[in-house]
């Protein structure tokens, strides 16, 4: 059924720290690696070593230059995957019921054996979170690593989404965003986490933390200046002796 649930028991999702992300794309690669061997059809590539490679990814990192009206410009790396929206438009447009939002944890999934590959859900998503697999011709999207987070066959520390486990900068956090006691909830409160394109009314579960404001460029400081200065005032020790000796000549 592609009607959205009235409410979900949990709202599992990601909190992505734009202040910390270094744009290394490690999450992109680990996501591709995990999801190629796990849930559903493998994430295919076409012509991977050729001139025009294309492939499906569930996570992509964009890099923006942000130039404020005043102050220095900044570079922001911007990872983007499915935001597991509360009012997910991708779910309600689906004609087959393949797209659905889970009541137990709020994860938005595609049942690939029902998907007819019409592409309508990808049109409905404002964030570009859904990509048609070029080989399987079914819709692929972030599963929040549903096959890791509940997986009792892997060590406990690995039971988080692959991107979160991999991020070397610790810029990605996973948890229940509906639980006020959860780490992610507090992080969002503290740092002023925000929604992407709130005007679309999708109510995304995933939140983004803003980059901390860049410091005003420090006042120009001359590091070598004092050493290169022609004055010898206050020189002591060897240099003082040399100074005095040379002075006498």
């Amino acid at each position: 059924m592609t009607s959205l649930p009235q409410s979900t028991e949990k709202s599992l999702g990601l909190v992505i720290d734009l202040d910390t992300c270094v744009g290394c794309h490690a999450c992109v690669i680990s996501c591709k690696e995990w999801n190629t061997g796990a849930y559903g059809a493998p994430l295919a590539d076409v012509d991977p070593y050729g001139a025009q490679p294309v492939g499906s990814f569930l996570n992509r990192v964009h890099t923006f230059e942000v130039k404020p009206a005043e102050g220095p410009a900044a570079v922001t790396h911007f990872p983007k995957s499915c935001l597991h929206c509360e009012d997910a438009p991708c779910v309600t447009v689906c004609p087959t019921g393949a797209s659905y939002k889970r009541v137990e944890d709020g994860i938005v999934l595609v049942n690939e054996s029902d998907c007819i590959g019409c592409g309508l859900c990808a049109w409905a998503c404002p964030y570009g979170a859904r990509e048609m697999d070029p080989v399987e011709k079914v819709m692929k999207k972030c599963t929040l690593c549903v096959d890791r987070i509940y997986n009792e066959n892997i060590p406990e520390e690995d039971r988080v989404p692959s991107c979160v486990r991999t991020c070397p900068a610790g810029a990605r956090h996973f948890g229940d965003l509906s639980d006020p006691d959860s780490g992610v909830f507090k992080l969002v409160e503290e740092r002023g986490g925000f929604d992407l394109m709130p005007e679309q009314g999708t109510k995304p579960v995933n939140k983004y933390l803003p980059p901390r404001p860049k410091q005003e460029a420090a006042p120009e400081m001359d590091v070598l200046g004092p050493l290169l200065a022609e004055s010898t005032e206050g020189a002591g020790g060897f240099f003082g002796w040399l100074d005095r000796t040379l002075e006498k000549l």
Partner: protein
Amino acid sequence: MHPAPSIILFTALSGLGFGLMVWLGLMPGDKGAWVAATFCILALALASIGLCSSLFHLGHPERAWKALSQWRSSWLSREGVIAIAALASFSLYGLLWVTSGTPNTLVGALSAALALATILCTAMIYTQMKTVPRWHSPLTPILFFAYALTGGALLAGKVTFSLWLLAALGGLQAFTWFKGDKAFAAAGHTMNTATGLNPDAKMRLLEAPHSGPNYLQKEMVFRIGRKHSQKLRIIAITLLAILPLALGLLFEVKHMLAGILVLSHIGGLLVSRWLFFAEAEHVVGLYYGQR
């Protein structure tokens, strides 16, 4: 949005077919069995060819039947269900008409209503897309109705009706283009709202996430040919409304000329449908520094 030929054909042909059903269902006129059969088969053929061509757009056409299940929430599903009902009801209507010699008013009205509902569903698939501000407007279903009824009237040979409708359609299409050009800016989506970063900052994409194009860009950030959109608009509106209207007003519409009128209108319809997709900008383009 990518103007896929299968989708252009689907919306154009099925619109014509269901439009013709509306006229035949409500105003069958005095027709002999053979003429009635020809008209009915034309309507059914156009609608079914249109629907079939939409299947070519699917990754898994063999599972298309599953698309009939979600009519409670999905416009695409509703379209499938109602289109089948309309085809069934109109087939019955045609059969009764041809065999008994007189059209059944009740079945005709039902077929017309179902045909209208199908046109509405098709239009709503696009109208519901908040992500494409140009489509997300009440003008979209109005325009789809106008196209279907005008094309249907032309095919049904309702000369007076079709001349009025051609004039109205031309004006409506021009107005829709005019409004549509402002829709994206009016919806207020910018790179800043897309990323949630400093609303006053000037932003640009410094590095794309990947070096080649991906599915999203191919499907939703179609920019080829927008350069010529003004010229194409003039061609479209001339073919679909101005030329048939002028010919219809100047000359008496008889067989040959009626054919030219219809062909010109269909040519214009296809160009304008191409533009409907090619000019539609999806908000995801903002993440790629494109529209």
